[in-house]
């Protein structure tokens, strides 16, 4: 009898229920999308800061001129990106130029901001030139650069706005040889996880006590600060959106009860206890809420996948784990909305309602 009532309500009041259902489904879709985006926002924002390159440097300490290459192995062990750099001055005829040696394979993630024409890396016997070097010596791609220590073929010209513009860039081993370094570098750049940057610094410092491991404050602080603020902003806005959705859905569900005063009157007149009528209404809402949560969740996943592709290119923004919170929120909202208006059930006087007042 109980379930016949519930099912009949769904069958005969399709229009009204559809409105309530739509409202709730949209709420669930929004909740899924927003939860998905929010749960992943830190990782995605940190990704954007990678363009900056290193956030830790290992520099020679005290009177030392170099850093041992064991630091690179240590960084590998900690699972962070690192690359050694070596700087030395080399003669070209009667001029001099700073040569930077770079381990291109390792350094790739750290030099992503380089603008290059030609190649981004140089192999054996090849080199890249900073834009100022290229202009000064009138170098073109493919030219043989007459370094006194042996010629190299120019493979690319780079522009960074930094000191690299004034340098000639060769593979690490060649520059290390010219600088007279064996198993050492002028400095080592490290890109650590922003959240664990201080731990990484301490671990590296412990492993290489003879060097100086420093956090680059500009990037570390800015990154932490911006990620926190963006997250807070999104959180506040998300809370606002969910609040208004709740109010909208509450309105719809209250209407479901209010409209049915006449039915409630009849039920009361034939002797149904108020609590039972309230349970009836609540079950109806719960069925509706579950159905819309599932549909909204499905749509929300598709939407957040699309967003993942569009906004955070490549990284899919789908997070299946949000199903529970979404269902919880949806069911909770529906229950609150129904219960809020259910108090009317107790106040309805069957005689008055049925007389048509």
């Amino acid at each position, binding site marked *: 009898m109980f379930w016949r009532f519930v099912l009949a309500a769904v069958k005969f009041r399709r229009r009204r229920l559809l409105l309530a259902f739509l409202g709730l489904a949209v709420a669930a879709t929004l909740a899924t999308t927003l939860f998905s985006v929010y749960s992943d926002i830190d990782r995605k924002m940190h990704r954007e800061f990678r363009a900056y390159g290193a956030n830790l440097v290992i520099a020679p300490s005290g009177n030392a001129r170099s850093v041992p290459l064991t630091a690179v192995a240590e960084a590998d062990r900690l699972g962070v990106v690192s690359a050694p750099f070596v700087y030395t001055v080399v003669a070209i005829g009667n001029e001099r130029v700073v040569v930077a040696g770079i381990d291109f394979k390792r350094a790739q993630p750290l030099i992503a901001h380089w603008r290059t024409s030609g190649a981004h890396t140089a192999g054996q016997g090849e080199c890249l030139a900073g834009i100022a070097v290229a202009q000064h010596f009138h170098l073109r791609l493919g030219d043989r650069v007459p370094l006194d220590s042996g010629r190299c073929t120019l493979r690319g010209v780079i522009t960074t706005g930094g000191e690299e513009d004034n340098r000639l860039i060769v593979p690490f081993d060649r520059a290390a040889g010219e600088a007279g370094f064996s198993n050492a570098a002028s400095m080592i750049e490290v890109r650590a996880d922003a959240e664990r940057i201080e731990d990484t610094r301490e671990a590296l410092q412990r492993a290489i006590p003879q060097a100086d491991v420093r956090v680059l404050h500009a990037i570390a602080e800015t990154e932490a600060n911006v990620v926190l603020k*963006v997250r807070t902003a999104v959180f506040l806005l998300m809370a606002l959106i969910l609040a208004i959705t709740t109010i*909208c859905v509450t309105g719809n569900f209250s209407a479901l009860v209010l409209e049915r005063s006449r039915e409630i009157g009849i039920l009361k007149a034939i002797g149904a206890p108020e609590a039972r009528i309230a349970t009836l209404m609540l079950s109806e809402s719960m069925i509706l809420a579950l159905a819309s949560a599932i549909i909204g969740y499905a749509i929300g996943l598709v939407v957040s996948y699309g967003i993942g592709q569009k906004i955070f290119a490549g990284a899919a923004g789908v997070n299946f784990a949000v199903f529970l919170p979404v269902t919880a929120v949806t069911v909770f909202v529906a229950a609150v909305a129904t219960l809020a208006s259910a108090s009317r059930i107790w106040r309805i006087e069957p005689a008055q309602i049925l007389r048509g007042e």
Partner: protein
Amino acid sequence: MTIGAVALGSAVATAMLGAMLDVGDRVNRELRSLGANLLVIPKSGSLPVEIGGIRYRPAAKDEFIPEALVPKLKSIFWQLNITALSPSLRAQTVLDGREIPVEGVWFLRDMRLPGGASSIQTGMRALNSAWKIEGRWVEDPKPNDGARECVLGAALAKRTGAAPGSGVILFGEPFTVAGILSTGGEQEDRALVRIEVLQRLTHRIGQVDAIEVGALTKPEDAFALKNPRQMTPVEYDRWYCTPYITSIAHQIEEALPMAIARPVRRVADTEGQVLNRVRSLMLLVALAALATAALTVWSVTAATVLDRRYEIAIMQATGAGNWLVAALFGAEVALEGATGGLIGASAGVQLSGWVSQTVFGIRAEASPLLAPMVISIAVLVALAGAAQPLRRALSLDPALTLREGA
């Protein structure tokens, strides 16, 4: 009921749109703590041979930017976007038997703007807000402040055993260490003094080697990557009047003909990427909010019309034409929409101000266009919500509706 719902909807819509526009700008400002995104250096015939601030070939004597021209940077078209600038002079000296770079800088001082009585506070500290000092900075607002003081980089201080308050000899003259600077970068191996002090010690009065500039920019898009020399006049004007890093650099070069301005790619590109992501994220959240707001308004108006189908039937029964009824309801809904929209928009402005205050500590100024826009959208959505149920009610036979209601 309708007014309330419309008000609620437009409040959220206004707050979101306001926040969306605001958060991007705020994040752009927060990103300025990355440091300079433009480097202005003298046009040079020679190539600097320099590692870690130590020059291996002395700089040519005639290559410098006159310090008197520094304020000209604040006279370019995008002057308001230049948030900080920090001129510096470089030299080197021997400390504890080792060559060290010394930099003469503006720490933080008032710079008088060209052609006006107003001035702004700028310098190295304004540009690099993330740097940390132990002890204190050298004060330099007045010509004779901090003349015998310096700031040492942390690595240099560690090597020489200097601490805040101790003394060092630079260029044969005694200096007091005001503070120890940690940045993580090359500055940790340097000594910093007031620029006038270094100019006097190196006999380079009024000269500057580089100006670091922090500017608020628009992330580079496909258009920004075009070569300005190949643009049509219209495109060139558009490029010139957009705060791309390259157009600001171009304008600086126009203002200082003896200098070149280079975008610092590491900083500029990071800013661009982060800003683009934040903007699209905010757009997404704003769209979600607009969808919710529209849904609320739409469903409430629809429900109201649905509830009033008896009224409609009575009007029809007493001879009102469909158009008259529709006009009557339309006017009513539009009025309610406008009222609700007005209340909501003003509440929304407060709301977005609150979000901005909470997150960034600064109240946002709402765009004056926002409120009228939201109100008209509110009216349109309310009308759209009313349209379908109204059409349905009008198409029904009034007699049937009235009997059902009896």
